[in-house]
């Protein structure tokens, strides 16, 4: 099965090079893009179905956040308790990204 694919690739290369005169560089780009598309399609096909109970996202973390979030952080809004208490590092990173973005804008626009 795998050598059929290799034969197909060789024939495709010959057709593109000899009949259409495609350059080696363009062919290489085509094949690398095809490989990336293949990897992405493979990853999507392997993903668990949306909303299924057996998904890895339904673990003890979400149950802990929902049951103990208000008690442990004092915030009724569970989203707030997650982004500003359990995962405050992540939000600090987000604020840093905002800061870096505005610094880049000022550096770019003030220079000329």
């Amino acid at each position, binding site marked *: 099965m795998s050598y059929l694919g290799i034969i197909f690739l060789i024939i495709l290369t010959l057709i593109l090079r000899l009949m259409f005169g495609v350059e080696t560089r363009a062919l290489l780009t085509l094949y690398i893009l095809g490989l990336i598309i293949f990897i992405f399609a493979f990853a999507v096909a392997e993903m668990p179905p949306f909303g299924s109970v057996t998904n890895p996202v339904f673990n003890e973390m979400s149950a802990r956040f929902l049951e103990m979030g*208000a*008690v*442990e*952080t*004092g*915030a*009724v*809004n569970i*989203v*707030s*308790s997650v*982004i*500003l*208490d359990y995962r*405050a*590092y992540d*939000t*600090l990173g987000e*604020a*840093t990204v*905002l*800061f870096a*973005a*505005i610094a880049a*804008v*000022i550096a770019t*626009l*003030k220079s*000329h």
Partner: protein
Amino acid sequence: MEDQIVRLTSRLVVPFIQLYGIYVIVHGHLSPGGGFSGGAIFGASLVLIAVSFNLEAGAKQVSPQSASILESGGALGFALTGLAAVVMGGSYLANRAAGFPIGVTGDLFSSGAIFIITLFLGAKVASTIVTLFYNIIEGEKKDGTPEKHSG
């Protein structure tokens, strides 16, 4: 560009937008919203002033200098709140473990560090939007292209 309808409408609407933005920021730990969305609402109201009047009227509300100070101060305050938790004897950015006053769950002044960080984040996001807007507009003006944003 003189447009009486736009000016009057924005003059009427802007205080309510700002009040709503402050409401969303302050109630970040109680209701949907928080520092990011409330700050975006508040910043949009300041942009609306500059768009419907002119840049000078917008700069009278929040000057670009104070906006950039507020912007850096918000990020610094966030990081210093995390450091305060270390000083109080917890880990970095700890909330209850560091001994921030949690208060009664559901009250306005509750949830310790979350409330403080939300205020800093709101100030930061609002001033980020204002700073971004002013820098892009000023960059446009310096190039000599006509202003198309008024009215």
